[in-house]
């Protein structure tokens, strides 16, 4: 478990940024619309911006304390940073980009070698390339690898998936989950995507007009957002059984034949609108994935309801209010989730 204590006051146009976040999450999500102030919060944590007042502490490592005149320089904060825009150095190859952080890390503080991290991210085939020959997803993967090679005390991710295609996004979420699980690095994840926050963070703070309006479990996002417009994607890590079978918690997931190239686990995504709910076991239907579970929560907004069901994993489904009433769903109701194999998306 990690700890984040972030208290920032800073005048920015058109409002005063005034936030206080205290969390023990492994991945702290900052959620909000564009211009809400979440990137400025991240910039203050990284040291790119200086708050007018406040204190920033990650895992008991104080990087800024206005009262005690502490303002650690960017390079000494040792916080890896990946943004939505490519920050790879265009004058260097992928390999040199990755080793840049390693070369500038004090020898006694180096935890990972470039080769270890290149292998961890499965990007050895990219190392000789110039960054112009990388796709959007590959660029972000390299940026992430580069940040981790510098053995950071935390990772600051500013909408890192917003400019990558959906298949690369699934792969990157898979890698980020592995980073969090296997490397145990505290992460602050900024996004305006409910799906990404839900997939990655343990706790979220919703930022609006420079203040935190709510903090807690990521599902609170749905009380804040208009569900009529939200496109929610469920992300799951599955065990590969064979080319057409995956294991998701206790459920077997049937998929169209895929070559997984020896991978033991892969990431899948299912859009909440692509899931059909039934209050009894359906028979005589073409869809092959029928998961039994029970409703644990639901959120109504306008004409839609997001239903959270537990089928061994928690899955969000989006149905209309009319359907929700017709099925007589409520908390603890037994429910069947029906998913077509073709609606299950895979990483590259």
């Amino acid at each position, binding site marked *: 478990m990690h700890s984040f204590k972030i208290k920032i006051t800073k005048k920015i146009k058109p409002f005063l940024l005034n936030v206080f976040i205290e969390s023990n999450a492994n991945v702290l999500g900052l959620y909000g619309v564009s211009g809400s102030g979440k990137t400025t919060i991240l910039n203050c944590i*990284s040291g790119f911006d200086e708050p007018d007042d406040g204190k920033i502490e990650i895992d008991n490592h104080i990087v800024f304390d206005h009262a005690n005149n502490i303002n650690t320089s960017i390079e000494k904060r040792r916080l890896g940073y990946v943004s939505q825009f490519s920050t790879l150095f265009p004058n260097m190859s992928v390999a040199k980009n990755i080793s840049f952080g390693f070369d500038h890390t004090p020898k006694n503080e180096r935890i990972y070698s470039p080769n270890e991290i290149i292998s961890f991210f499965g990007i050895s085939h990219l190392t000789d390339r110039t960054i112009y020959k990388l796709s959007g997803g590959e660029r972000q993967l390299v940026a992430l690898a580069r*940040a981790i090679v510098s053995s950071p005390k935390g990772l600051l991710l500013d909408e890192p998936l917003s400019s990558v295609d959906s298949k690369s996004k699934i792969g990157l979420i898979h890698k980020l989950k592995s980073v969090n699980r296997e490397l145990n690095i505290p992460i602050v994840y900024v996004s305006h995507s409910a799906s990404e926050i839900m997939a990655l963070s343990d706790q979220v703070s919703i930022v609006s007009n420079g203040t935190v309006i709510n903090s807690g479990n990521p599902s609170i996002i749905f009380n804040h957002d208009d569900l009529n417009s939200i496109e929610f994607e469920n992300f799951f890590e599955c065990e590969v059984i064979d080319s057409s079978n995956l294991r998701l918690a206790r459920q077997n997931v049937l998929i169209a034949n895929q070559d997984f190239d020896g991978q033991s686990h892969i990431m899948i995504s299912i859009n909440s609108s692509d899931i059909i709910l039934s209050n009894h076991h359906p028979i005589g239907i073409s869809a092959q994935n029928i998961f039994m579970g029970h409703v644990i929560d639901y959120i109504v907004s306008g004409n839609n309801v997001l239903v959270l069901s537990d089928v061994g994993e928690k899955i969000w489904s989006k149905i209309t209010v009319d359907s929700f009433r017709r099925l007589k769903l409520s908390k603890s109701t037994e429910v069947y989730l029906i998913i077509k194999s073709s609606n299950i998306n895979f990483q590259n």
Partner: protein
Amino acid sequence: MLEVIILTVQIALLATAINLPVSLIIANYQDKLPSKFKFILDVFISLPLALPPVVTGYFLLVIFSPNGILGDLFFEIFGFDIVFTWFAAALASALVSFPLMVRPMMLSFSNIDSNLINAARSLGANKFQSFYKIKLNLALPGIWAGIILGFTRSLGEFGATIMVAGNIPGKTQTLPLAIYTSVQIGDDSQVYLLVGLSIGLALMSLSVYNLILYRYKNSNKDI
């Protein structure tokens, strides 16, 4: 003849060497200036482009003459008068070519995404390391453009040079001044030769510039 060429190149090289550090400092720190100061700086940097070079030369003559503000100081420190020396010719060339040297560098530096510098620092590089490993490296095409343009302009400098350094054969007579003298005395064959040399030097400088840029672009493709 050889003496004129050597002196011309020597003066252009010194002018470039004087301008280079000043240009790099201005290009690097331009974005940190408040916009009002940047506007004023832009005007002053471009002034030698708009002024007739003889005016620039006249100002230098006034300042560096034995009774001038800096001329007196220079004499006290170095023990000789600067005016009518090849060093004065280099100063005149430096001033006139300065806008051509600093502008491409300013453009090149301002086009560098500040996120790259922040990224370098977040990876452990200090200010100086992120400057020379990232910023300076990415600005190289603009730096080379400024150096070659400034050097080439210095090779052809006439008006300011004649004002502050005169036209003394073997001492301050550069190629353009030698052409002027030859035209005055009606030595056509000498004029053709000097004009040819002048064109040759300019072509050589610009070819070097293109070659450097070509190699730079290709090396970026190959890494």
